[in-house]
Each structure stands twice: as structure tokens, then as C-alpha cells.
């Protein structure tokens, strides 16, 4: 006997089902038995954290705002990696998955949301592992505001998805976009507050850096994590406005270029 799909599928349920199926499938391809996806997802941020912790130690510097060095770097680096990796995975969503667009119920947005959800879950686990590992070396850890911390990571994930959606559309127009993405994003590593907090900068520099939504996400995560640190400048509404704008532009662009995606 063959299985009968329900004749009337509520649009939203159907879309949720597609995203769920995609996320499961992505898990297999990204973290399959033969590739070290899990290991890399953990090693890359760990490498940066330890490298910069080494720099801090050599320079005999402590983290600002009464924060400990390792979690100070971990909150910055993991949040940053989450935005960039999600954007990267999203931008390649169409090119890596043309076979899927054979199924009319699979849309570009589903691919981006599924990949984004997977990255978000991955980095949440990475965060727990790294912070968990560090917590064993100190007597006591208290997370100040878990909800704020999770909102910061959640917004970072959505920001990455929005960026990915826009880049994905641009990629269809010109594959060059994917090549310049790396060099274009790399400077953000130095201006997103991974190694500093905005209040420790001169006002003139701070003014410009606050336009960077990634910096706000990192400040949210830090304010949520550390009882001793509460960023006075953080503006979650600003990040939300970025996300809405990116999704709007990305979806409009996707509609415009959809017909250019050649399936064969």
C-alpha cells in the first residue's frame, strides 16, 4: 500500500514540515559520519579564544568591565562566528541545494531558515561546551540573565540568516559575490567588539562602531552572561530593525532572481 499525504495541508504546517525535513537532512550532510563538521564547529572558535587569551596573558592585560578573559572572548567570538557562519551557509543555500528546488514546496527561504536553525543550535552547543569547560576551572559561575543571553544569540542567528538571504540572492545574479564575501566580512572581526567593549573607546570611534549590529548582539550576550557587566549602549531594537530590513530586501531580491536559477 502506498501512503496517502493528507489532502489539505495547512500552508504553515507544510512549511514547518519542510524546514524540519531540511534541517534533519542538513545535519546529515554537515555533520555526517565521514566529515568532522562537529569537531570543526568547536575547534575554530576554540582556536581563536585560546590564541587571544594567550595574547591577553602575554600583554598582561585583563578583560574590561570586571569580566574574566576566557568568557569575555568566548561570548564575543562565538556570537561573531554564529553571525558569519550562518550568513555563509545561507549565501550558498541555492548553489549547494539546486536538487532540492525540484520540489516545488521547497523555497529558498526554507533552505536559509533550516541552515540558520542548524547553525544556531550548533553554536549554542559550542557555547555550552566552551563555557562549561571553563566553568570547571573556576569556583563558581553565575549567569546573570539567561533570557538576555539567549536573545543575543538568537538575534545573532537571525542577523546571519538575513545577511545570508541577501547574499544568496546576489549570488544568483553574480557568483563573484561569494568570492568577495570573505574579504568584505573579515574587517568586522576587529570592529565588532570581540576584544573590547564600546564604552572603553573614545566617543568619536564609538559613534561609528555602534552602527554595527553584530556589536550589539555581542553586548547583549555579555550583559546577559556577566553579573558585573551591563552595557549601557546596547540596543536590541536596532538589531531587530536590521533583521527586518535584511529579510525584506532579501525576499524581494529572491522574488526578482528566482527565475534565473537554472535547475539543470
Amino acid at each position, binding site marked *: *500500500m*502506498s*501512503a*496517502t*499525504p*493528507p*489532502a489539505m*495541508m495547512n500552508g504553515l*504546517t*507544510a512549511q514547518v*514540515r*519542510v524546514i*524540519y*525535513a*531540511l534541517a*534533519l*537532512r542538513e545535519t*546529515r*550532510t554537515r555533520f*555526517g559520519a565521514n566529515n568532522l563538521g562537529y569537531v570543526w564547529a568547536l575547534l575554530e572558535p576554540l582556536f581563536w579564544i585560546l590564541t587571544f587569551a594567550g595574547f591577553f596573558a602575554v600583554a598582561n592585560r585583563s578583560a574590561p568591565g570586571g569580566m574574566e578573559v576566557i568568557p569575555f572572548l568566548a561570548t564575543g567570538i562565538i556570537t561573531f562566528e554564529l553571525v558569519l557562519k550562518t550568513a555563509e551557509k545561507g549565501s550558498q543555500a541555492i548553489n549547494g541545494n*539546486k*536538487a*532540492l*528546488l*525540484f*520540489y*516545488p*514546496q*521547497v523555497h529558498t527561504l526554507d533552505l536559509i531558515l533550516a541552515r540558520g536553525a542548524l547553525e544556531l543550535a550548533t553554536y549554542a552547543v559550542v557555547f555550552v561546551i566552551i563555557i562549561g569547560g571553563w566553568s570547571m576551572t573556576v569556583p563558581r559561575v553565575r549567569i546573570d540573565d539567561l533570557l538576555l543571553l539567549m536573545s543575543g544569540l538568537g538575534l545573532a542567528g537571525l542577523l546571519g540568516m538575513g545577511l545570508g538571504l541577501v547574499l544568496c540572492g546576489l549570488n544568483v545574479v553574480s557568483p563573484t559575490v561569494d568570492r568577495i564575501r570573505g574579504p568584505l566580512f573579515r574587517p568586522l572581526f576587529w570592529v565588532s567588539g570581540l576584544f573590547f567593549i564600546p564604552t572603553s573607546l573614545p566617543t568619536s570611534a564609538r559613534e561609528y562602531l555602534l552602527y554595527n549590529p553584530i556589536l550589539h548582539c555581542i553586548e547583549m550576550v555579555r550583559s546577559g552572561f556577566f553579573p558585573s557587566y551591563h552595557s549601557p549602549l546596547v540596543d536590541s531594537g536596532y538589531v531587530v530593525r536590521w533583521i527586518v530590513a535584511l529579510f525584506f530586501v532579501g525576499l524581494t531580491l529572491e522574488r526578482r532572481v*528566482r*527565475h534565473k536559477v*537554472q*535547475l*539543470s
Partner: protein
Amino acid sequence: MIELRSVTKAYRTRAGDHLVLNKIDAVFPERVSVGILGKNGAGKSTLLRILGGAEQPDAGVVTRKGRVSWPIGFAGGFNGSLSGDENCRFVARIYGADVDEVVDFAERFAEIGEYFRMPVRTYSSGMRARLAFGLSMALDFDTYLVDEVTAVGDQTFQAKCQAAFADRQERSSVIIVSHQMATIRKYCAHAAVLSDGRLHFYDDLDEAAAAYEAVA
């Protein structure tokens, strides 16, 4: 049922726009199987993707009633690094069907043995097509879109596909594109010829064959 109203599709090439489908009006009624004949490059696969909804026309409207399959054939639809059963699971999920039932059915229908649990990239094109057929048969579609089945497997498997479609005649229809009249004869009572961006319908297969020979 699928209805096309002045559906137009062009591809941009270096030599300028190439009009693949030129204001096509057509109705594919329920429970009527239609074969579409066309030379290589006539736009058969494009037409099939537009019928299925995987591709949008540049202009015109496509209306579908009932569940329409994805274009079943050799190309696309499977992830090469995943195994046959993983691919089946994914498709069952997006169509909201019972995953285990679909996987069982597809495995039995495809008859590809142990390959079912190996990555699809290790398959021959015939095996891919077998899997695609098995999987599509496991899901109940009202309209099956089939792309070039002429060489799917051996005689036995072809007979099996024919029997499966014959079995479903009461509830499902098939739209097959092919460049060979012989294929169309096996599955369809009606045929159309696609050439120069236009689609002409014929009630009689022999008439269609004659018209096709004139353009081929």
C-alpha cells in the same frame, strides 16, 4: 488537472534571448495521460518543471488542482552524499507522508538491493531513475510528471512501471515528455508535440507521430 494560460519562458544566452515556450495555452485534464514529444532542446524539461511548479514562467499563469509530482526521471531531486533511504525519508517528510511506509514501498519497488543504503552518488543513472520511480509511486499523486523514461532499467522494470501507472489510471494521470514516440505509446492515449515554443495537441497518436516526424 493543470491549466496553462499564455505561458512564456525564455532563456538568456550569449546569442540573445531564446524563446523556449511561446504563449502556450493548454489544459491537462484529470485522469487523462498525455505524452509530449519534442526534440532534444525543444524545452520539454522546462515545460515539465513549469507544470510542476519548480520553475516560474516569465509570463502567463499556471493553475494546478490536486497533488502534482516533481519531474521524475534521471536528473536532480536527490542529494548524492545521502543514501537512497535517507533521500526517501526527506521527500516523505516534505510531502507529509508516513516516512516508514514510503521508505518500505520505495525500497521494494526500486529493487536496487543494498545500494538503497548507499550514497546516491554511487548509483548508475538507471538506478537513480528506479529510486525516483519507486519513491514517486509510494506517494499518491494526482498527476505524475515523468521526464524521458525510455531507458529506465530493463524490460522487467519498464513493464513494472507501466503496470503501476495502469493500476492508477482511475485516480491519477501521467504527463510524460520524451523524444521517442515508442515511449509515449506505452503510457498515453493522447499526445502533443512541442516545437518552436508551441505545443500542439493531437487526439490520435498516429497523427501526433506523423506531425512529430515532420518537425524532427
